[in-house]
């Protein structure tokens, strides 16, 4: 069973990686479009309101709109570290 901490950690990793890939402004702006997430300036997801899985899928979609397969590959790679979490968008 995935804990909220697992989701927070995964989401934080995802945002931080996107900050390196796409640039901090673009990555943070898009992460903050997900209303369920509270994202700090360093990319850490400090709070998730509501369904964490829905928030993960929404964030993954947001990044895929920007970098398509790159974001998909990044998420797939991160999900390997969190086998208990699945994403509908990870392919």
């Amino acid at each position, binding site marked *: 069973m995935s804990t909220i901490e697992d989701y927070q950690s995964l989401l934080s990793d995802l945002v931080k990686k996107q900050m390196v890939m796409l640039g901090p*402004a673009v990555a943070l702006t898009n992460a903050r479009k997900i209303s369920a997430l509270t994202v700090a300036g360093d990319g850490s997801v400090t709070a998730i309101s509501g369904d964490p899985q829905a928030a993960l899928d929404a964030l993954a979609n947001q990044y895929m709109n920007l970098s398509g397969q790159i974001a998909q590959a*990044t998420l797939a790679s991160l999900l390997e570290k969190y086998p208990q979490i699945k994403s509908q968008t990870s392919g």
Partner: protein
Amino acid sequence: MDITISLAAVTIIGTFSGIAGYFLMRSKYKRELAKGRSREAELATKVYETAVLKEIGERIGYSLDANKIIEIISGSLGQLLPYSTVSHMILKDDRISFVTNVNESVSHSFINDVRGKMLAALSEMLMEVKLDVDVDESISGAILDESGSLPVASFFNLPIVISGRLAGIINVASKTEGLYVGDDTAVLYRIAIGASEAVSRLQEVLEEEKGKLAAAVESLSDGVLMVDKNYQLIVANKKLRQLLGTIESPKIFDIVNALAGTFDLRIKMEEVMSGAEPVASFEIVLHDKVLAVSAARVSSQRRQKPIGLVVLFHDITDAKALEKLRQDFMAMMVHELRSPLTSIKSTVAMIKSAGVGTIGAEDLGKYLQNIASTSETMLDLVNDLLDVAKVEAGKFDIVCDRADLGEVILERIESFKPQMAARGLLIEVDIEKDLPAAWFDKVRIKQVMNNLLSNAIKYTDAGTVKVLAAVEKVNGAPIDILVSVADTGIGIEADQAEKLFSKFGQLESGRGHGELKSSGLGHYITKKIVEGVGGKIWMESAGAGAGSTFFFTVPLAAGAKRDQAGQNLVVPQGQGLLKNFTTTKVGQ
């Protein structure tokens, strides 16, 4: 008083309503104005996106050059965003090229910072550290200003992915803080994805076509080698790998090494590529095979510049062997014709020098008999050559009719009995009683029997020649007549048997026989005749010295008419009594 108060109240309320209405209207107007501006901005963004994608579509055409996409997107940024530098990194063959265009003067450290951020992004995207690879750097645009050392304050990266592979990234960077936080960058990501998808689709189509071409080249019966203008190997097809005996995926060095000792492939390629010898053709011998090699430069259709070269390796071993057989055959024929002519000439010269009146009648008779039999041999040779010429020209007529095959066989045996007796050979004949009528060309089948019987006699020094003829049946039903001519002569190895029926059979099989010379074409002509009447011919031998048996079949008259109707054989019209004949042209 009450009325006055009421009027005042109405006036105040009316005034407030008017003011409120004004503010409401103003607010609505402002909202509409904002909406209009937003729509206008949205429209402008859409127009920009469409224009950039259109330009990408027009400029890349059928090229898959990621550079062009990156250049177009980079070049269009000025219309959309403020920036100090726009840079791109392209990955190609384990090298990275880094190109920066400076819009606002920045320092070297700023550019180094951009480069570091792009390498970090590349490493993250590729999931492979790319921080210490060689980078080819190019900077253009505004002059660098080393006096200021403002770092990169704002930046974003656009990845360009072609067919699932990262082709490169674009970086937009500025000295100004707080940029690129809004949705103004979204259009660029949409453009990048749109362009990537368009090029990926194009690449898929090209890959598919390339795959078809590669499959065709791979299955060619000639060896094909293709290199680009830098002599990098593009294609080494299966046949080439077989001919050269190289590994499954050879490098150009493997191919050069495989050809060492025959010719220097590198030098030949350089000669062809330089144009000194645009097309080269020559022959080499490699692994007991003769190969015709031809190399040609390949130029681009548009620019007429050399883009690579193709080397073809055509296996001509068989053609060379055939050519040698032809030459040997010609030499043999010349010899076979010259020998009897020399004999005739000598005999005539001898009679002439002695004087006809001085030679006794008995001796003169012997001389004339010698001339007659020698010229007969020559005539046979010439007739064989003529028959072969007719076969090759498709003018060798076979005229079939209903006839008694047993009768023909017996007649031929009778004519050969004196020869057999002269050589001390026995003859055994077994022709099935009441042999049904067959469908064949009497003259040509006589020729077949002559060939088989004369060969049996020729190649048998002692023993018996057996001739059998019987109806062949399948499941009890007669299908044809099988004739066999067996001897106890020199025989032949099994692997050489089939060669006897080829044009140069005697040369190929080495079945020459000392004294009795012939064209060696008899079996070839025999095969054509038997096949021409709709039969089959083959030979069996237990090996050298174990005798030979030749078999051939002739269709039955009843069945042949039916079968031949379906074989498109020519049936001459209007030939009166010959209307039941069928004729066919026998060709190679």
